[in-house]
């Protein structure tokens, strides 16, 4: 993990990624949270600028308020602090499917220029994969039905591929009009937040383009870690470094939470 330096505070690439992801959530939003980086970011948002963020985990816990990071989507603290705990069929059928949830926060093993996500298998042959990944979980329906989706993933050539080996969760499919043809009700992925910057879909062709970088990150590095010919927005922004309060809140969360094993990222 490389250390960047800006102003008084020193922070890691992962820290500014999580802080940036947290900033993308507004107070009182409802957020369907995956485990790992998305859960860190959502809990950071709740600990800082969005105290009334409604965290929803696929275990059926609605409005969970964990004081430290849960290791799994079903930790006891989520049930004990939730506004409501519902069954698994109910969380998907009554809460997610009708489009009640504002934002879905997902991770990815592979992601392509249309924001399609693979968490199933690496390699072109499904029956004989090079690497067998965990699979779909709740992600396909989160990607389909949340009003919008934000993806948090570390940027490298293994993850950022021209075409995913397997479409587990649909982003924009093969481009404009695809979500409508497939009957997917949500707006799809609106941001990919990485450890280098932020990618957003070009409204003209829905291809993800680089719209912001972190302080000190050259565009060439982002392009080098992207498996397609990454275009750069004409109005490329620089994301402000983490504030001291954001960093201390994140570090407190991580210190109180279980160890970050990172192996499923």
């Amino acid at each position, binding site marked *: 993990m490389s250390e960047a330096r800006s102003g008084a505070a020193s922070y890691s690439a992962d820290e500014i990624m999580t802080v940036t992801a947290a900033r993308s959530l507004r107070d009182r939003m409802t957020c369907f949270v995956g485990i790992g980086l998305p859960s860190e970011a959502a809990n950071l948002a709740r600990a800082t600028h969005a105290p009334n963020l409604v965290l929803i985990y696929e275990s*059926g816990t609605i409005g969970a308020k964990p004081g430290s990071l849960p*290791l799994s989507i*079903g930790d006891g603290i989520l049930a004990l602090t939730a506004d409501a705990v519902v069954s*698994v069929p109910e969380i998907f059928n009554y809460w997610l499917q009708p489009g009640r949830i504002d934002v879905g926060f997902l991770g990815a093993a592979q992601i392509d220029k249309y924001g399609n996500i693979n968490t199933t298998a690496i390699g072109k042959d499904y029956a004989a*994969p090079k690497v067998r990944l965990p699979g779909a979980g709740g992600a*396909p329906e989160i990607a389909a039905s949340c009003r919008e989706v934000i993806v948090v993933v570390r940027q490298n050539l293994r993850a950022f591929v021209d075409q995913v080996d397997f479409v587990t*969760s649909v982003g924009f499919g093969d481009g404009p009009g695809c979500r409508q043809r497939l009957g*997917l009700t949500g707006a799809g992925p609106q941001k990919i937040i990485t450890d280098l910057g932020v990618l957003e879909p070009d409204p003209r062709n829905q291809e993800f383009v680089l719209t912001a970088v972190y302080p000190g990150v050259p565009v060439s590095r982002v392009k080098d870690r992207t498996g397609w010919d990454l275009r750069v927005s004409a109005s490329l922004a620089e994301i402000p470094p983490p504030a001291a309060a954001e960093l201390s809140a994140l570090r407190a969360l991580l210190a109180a939470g279980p160890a970050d094993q990172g192996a499923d990222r």
Partner: protein
Amino acid sequence: MAEIVSLTAAIEAAVHDGDTVAMEGFTHLIPHAAGHEVIRQRLRELTLVRMTPDVIYDQLIGAGCARKLVFSWGGNPGVGSLHRFRDAVEHSWPAPLELEEHSHAGMANRYVAGASGLPFAVLRGYSGTGLVAQTPSIAEISCPFTGETLTAVAALTPDVAVIHAQQADRAGNVQYWGITGVQKEAVLAARRSVVTVEEIVDVLEPRPGAVVLPAWALGYVAAVPGGAHPSYALGYSARDNDFYVAWDAISRDRETFAAWLEQYVYGQQTSGQQTSGRGTGN
């Protein structure tokens, strides 16, 4: 009608070679002790069904009990890969493992259909995903009222469902609370059922959000305190996160796994307090 028996007797009576077995419990209340008993009874050729075949099915797959896995997410939650699952899929060890793969919403709805006595369930899902081409139990369906294209998933009707709950009363009525998952649907979808419980009490006190399964809808009930470990039973135990982390190293290597299995599963008695697997195998 529920019979209160030992765990050994319950598994002997309810689970047979070649059965389709659903062990459910969504992170919470995972029936680990029952899974160990299935391993000890050396059951073979099972079709294992579970939304999240985490550590419990990693153990059953590595022990050679499974022929096929029906699932929606096969990882060690918050930790990483399931190494025994991956070894079976990637290298056919200890035996090839056929996969039938869904999303969580699809699996949950398949249980709902099974519990409802219907041949399939309908949902918005899967369209555009690679799962449609790989999984025969997913099909497009047209709404007879609006013509909208939706997705049908075939009902799950396991031979036996196995769950863990906090309490049963002496008549065999069962109550569980906290994260209630998909266990009610799994039990009602299955032909037979085994419920392990933390304790058997005189009276089931009402609890907020609890699910009660009446004795007449159940098969076998066995008292197995701590039977969810390393998962947890709200009000009785905490999730042993350290074990989930330790499982990564135990399961990564075939020999380490075999030694763990020998010590903590084959080498354990089934009755009384469930302690197997509490160590790290090192």
